[in-house]
């Protein structure tokens, strides 16, 4: 693979996707410490929101330690060069949340839908794209569930609504490099040349690095990951590793590798409640194609109803659940426990 000379934009997910692994309990101080260190290391973009995006504070997904407004206003103010993004899932967050985040000083909004449902993002993307200087990104989750052609149609919708960048998101960490290549290459060939293209991976099958490289080779110029991989499931693409690989391959990221390593080791790993790694359940997410943030919910329900979390996850995959259906997990666990006569 020859991708030398390419320039890409890295986007760190520790303070948003990482919220899943932390049950949304990262403190404002921890966010500030990590964000300032990333700014110093030259990280171009970081995301700061409840794990499920703006307005995610809920019984269903978990109440965070602080509000999105508190996190965003603190972090946005503290950044010198790093641009801060927020995530918004229509159906959970609304344009009111979007306006609040803009007032807090975000530079980028990422509007996320399930890969087949891009049309629910129209009002949010259209509104965001009219705000001067706001980077407006369409983000299609669970992109492994449909073909490259179907995905392209949905990406084009987001582009038409006004997104200047669109993302192919492997929320389940299910994709293999060829899956990424096919989808990204087709999107790159068919979208407007000025539309940026990104890839967001999860490391459930240890494909984070390989998939991100495949995405860059096929034409993506934005890559998500997180230092030390702090994120849902087995985490996001471990960014310090990806930065090292990029350096070896002659890809320019603008991030200081050793500083990135130190943040991962000295700041992010000590924050973890559990070691974010490919354990049996995280691997099941990737293997069965299940939304990565279901991991801790399945573990909790398994414990409460004395079931196997792997069985729960496999069944959630079989039922083709989508992101946000966390409420299905306890419901399903109750069904499974009843079927076994233990409820």
């Amino acid at each position, binding site marked *: 693979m020859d991708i030398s000379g390419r320039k890409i934009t890295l986007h760190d997910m520790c303070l948003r996707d990482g919220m899943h692994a932390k049950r949304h309990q990262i403190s404002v101080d921890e966010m500030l410490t990590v964000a300032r260190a990333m700014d110093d290391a030259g990280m171009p973009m970081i995301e700061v929101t409840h794990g499920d995006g703006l307005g995610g504070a809920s019984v*269903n997904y978990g109440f965070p330690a602080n509000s999105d407004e508190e996190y965003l206003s603190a972090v946005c103010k503290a950044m010198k060069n790093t641009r801060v993004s927020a995530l918004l899932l229509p*159906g959970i967050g*609304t344009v009111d949340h979007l306006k609040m985040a803009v007032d807090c000083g975000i530079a980028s909004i990422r509007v996320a839908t*399930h890969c087949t*449902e891009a049309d629910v993002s129209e009002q949010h993307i259209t509104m965001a794209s009219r705000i001067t200087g706001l980077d407006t990104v369409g983000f299609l989750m669970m992109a492994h569930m449909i073909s490259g052609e179907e995905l392209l149609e949905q990406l084009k919708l987001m582009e038409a609504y006004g997104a200047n960048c669109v993302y192919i998101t492997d929320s389940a960490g299910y994709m293999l490099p060829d899956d990424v290549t096919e989808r990204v290459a087709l999107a790159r060939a068919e979208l407007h040349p000025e539309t940026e293209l990104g890839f967001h991976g999860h490391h459930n099958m240890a494909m984070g690095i390989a998939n991100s490289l495949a995405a860059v080779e096929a034409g993506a110029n934005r890559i998500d990951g997180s230092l030390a991989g702090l994120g849902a499931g087995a985490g996001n693409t471990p960014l310090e590793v990806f930065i090292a690989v990029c350096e070896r391959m002659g890809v320019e990221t603008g991030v200081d590798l050793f500083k990135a390593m130190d943040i991962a080791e000295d700041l992010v790993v000590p924050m973890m409640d559990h070691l974010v790694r490919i354990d049996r359940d995280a691997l099941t997410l990737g293997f069965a194609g299940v939304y990565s943030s279901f991991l801790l919910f399945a573990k909790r329900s398994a414990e409460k109803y004395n079931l196997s979390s792997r069985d729960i996850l496999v069944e959630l995959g079989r039922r083709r659940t989508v992101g946000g259906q966390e*409420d299905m997990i306890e*419901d399903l666990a109750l069904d499974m426990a009843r079927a076994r006569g233990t409820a």
Partner: protein
Amino acid sequence: MRGKIKAAIIGPGNIGTDLLLKAARSEWIEPVWMVGVVADSPGLARAQEMGLKTTADGVDGMLPTLKEDGVQICFDATSAYVHAENSRKVTEQGAVMIDLTPAAIGPFCVPPVNLAESVAAKSMNVNMVTCGGQATIPMVAAVSRVQAVNYAEIVATVSSKSAGPGTRKNIDEFTRTTASGIEQVGNAAQGKAIIIINPAEPPLMMRDTIHCLTEDPPDEAAIRESVQRMIADVQQYVPGYTLKNGPVFEDRRVSIYMEVEGLGDFLPKYAGNLDIMTAAALRTAEMYAEQILSGKFIPSAA
């Protein structure tokens, strides 16, 4: 034999047509007009076959003869954007407007919770909240009538095929309107609504999760009983309203897991979200009709 109250349906789409099929069976309502805006719409053709008067000129096409045709109740199954105008026009002519859009200019009505109150208030415009609201607010009310609910949150999961263009274009209306319905009708101090659209094939049945956080520790027995009683009330007009699991009690959290199967009149059975809207709207209209027929309420222009 007593008569029926004549009604008009505005919007001959999936919802309007399903409502027509249900209304045609009603003992209280006689649908006489179907109002559309597209001349060759299949919904208008079907209504015409069933003997209704039709127009493709919108509400304006019906207004000149609305009084003469004896229309006293109108259903609006169009969109929030045009509802206010439709409502103004028909209420000026003395017809009650039952609003199936999320426009929410009139008071909310969730039949098993506040239908009697809504009708007693003699409002000329009544709003049916949202599909998710109709499916979940009865459960919030079932808990809140036992004890104070500080916070109620609902998650409505609907199949991709049952989420129409109106819902998709303005999904924020759904979350906002449902959240206010949870507070105003469900009587929770704070409400939150989440909607998830799932494209799985075959399409999944509408699912609804209701989480309540009670002020004091939940009275489990009383809540169980209240939930069962409320489900029986909803089942009178939506027989496929089913408790799947719960109530689950964990500290002050009460979680109820529901499934809503539609009657399958015009809409497929999985689209319980749409069925519960049309069934609730018809039930509301029937209650109004009963009041009108008994002389307790004479709808008139304000």
